[in-house]
C-alpha cells in the first residue's frame, strides 16, 4: 500500500505549489500513470480521497491520464509486440522501455483570488 505514501507526497507537493501562487484552493490535479509504474490507479485515487481532507486539495478532482506500454529496440527502432520476449526480433538486442512506467504530476489548476 505504497499508494498512501505517494498520495501524501502528492498532496504535500501540490499544497506547496498552491501556496507559492497565493491560491485559495486547488481545482484539479492531473497525474499521468502507466501500467508499469508500479502503482494501482484505483488505490491511488482512494488514498488521495482520504488524504486530501482538510488540505487545499479538499475539493480538487484527481484526473488520471493513462499511458501505453512501449518496448522499442534502441538500435533499429522496432516496436516489440507486447507479451513477447523483450529482445529485438531483428537485431537480438535487449529492448528499452519507451513508455508505460510514467508516474508524473503533469499539471494542477489553482483557484487564485481574481485581484491577486
Amino acid at each position, binding site marked *: 500500500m505504497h499508494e498512501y505514501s505517494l498520495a501524501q507526497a502528492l498532496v504535500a507537493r501540490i499544497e506547496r505549489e498552491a501556496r507559492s501562487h497565493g491560491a485559495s484552493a486547488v481545482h484539479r490535479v492531473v497525474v499521468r500513470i502507466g501500467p508499469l*509504474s508500479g502503482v494501482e490507479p484505483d488505490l491511488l485515487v482512494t488514498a488521495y480521497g482520504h488524504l486530501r481532507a482538510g488540505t487545499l486539495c479538499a475539493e480538487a478532482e484527481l484526473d488520471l491520464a493513462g499511458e501505453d506500454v512501449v518496448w522499442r529496440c534502441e538500435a533499429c527502432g522496432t516496436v516489440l509486440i507486447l507479451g513477447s520476449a523483450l529482445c529485438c526480433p531483428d537485431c537480438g538486442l535487449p529492448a528499452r522501455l519507451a513508455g508505460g512506467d510514467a508516474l508524473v*504530476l503533469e499539471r494542477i489548476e*489553482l483557484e487564485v483570488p481574481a485581484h491577486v
Partner: protein
Amino acid sequence: MCDTCGCGDTKLVPVELHERLLAGNDRMAAHNRAHFAKHRVLAVNLMGSPGAGKTALLEATARAVGTSRRLAAITGDLETDRDAVRLRSVGIPAEAITTGSACHLDADMVHHALHHDAAHGADTLFIENVGNLVCPAIYDLGQAAIVVALSVTEGEDKPLKYPVMFRKADLVLLTKVDLLPALPDFDRGALEEALARVMPAPRLLEVSARSGTGIAEWVAFLEARRVTAAGVAASRAAHETHQSMTRGA
C-alpha cells in the same frame, strides 16, 4: 469568497509541473549514490518475497567471502531486528530499519541509516528490503545493483505476475535449489521464458545457501558489478569536473 474584499471572484490558474511523483525520493537516491561512490561502497538492493531466502543468502555470502571483503547490511522489516541479529552473528555489521506499517524502504530511510554509520568502513552494503514483490520495486535507493531473490517453491510465473519488480532487476537469484529434488514439477524453462517477457536482459543464477551451490558465481557477480560501478562513478565524476571547468572558462 476572496479574503481581501469579499467579492468571491477567483480565477483558474493552470500550472504545468511535469514532475515525477517520486522526485523527492529520486533526489535522495542520487545523494545516497554519490555517497556510495565517494566511499567506494558497492550497494546492492536485495528484494524478494518474505521467506525467499534473502537473509540466508547473505549469511552464505559472509561465509564465502570471509575476510576478503568488508560487508555491511541494512535490513528492512515491519517489526523486529531479527534479520540484523542473524547477520551480525555471521560477522556482518547490520542496521535494522523497522518500518512499522510501511511496506518498502525508501531512499530517505537508507540515508538515515547511513547517518547511523550503517556502511562505515564497508566495501559492500547489502540493503535487504522489506519482503514484498510489489511496493519496494518503485523506490530507487541509490544502489548499484538490483537483485531479486525468488525461491523454487514460489512458482515459475511470478515474474509475469510482478513485472515491475523483475523488469529492473540486474540479476534474479533462484534460491533454495537444494529443494529441487523434492519438486519434480519445477519447470526451469517456464521460469526463463517468463523472465524473458519482463526483463530486457534476463539473468538467472541458481543458488542454495544451504549447500553452497552457486554462491561462488554470486560473489563473482558482485565483483563484476563493483568494477562496473567504479567505472560509472569515475565517468560521472569526470563529466562533472568537465562541466565545472567549462562553466569556469
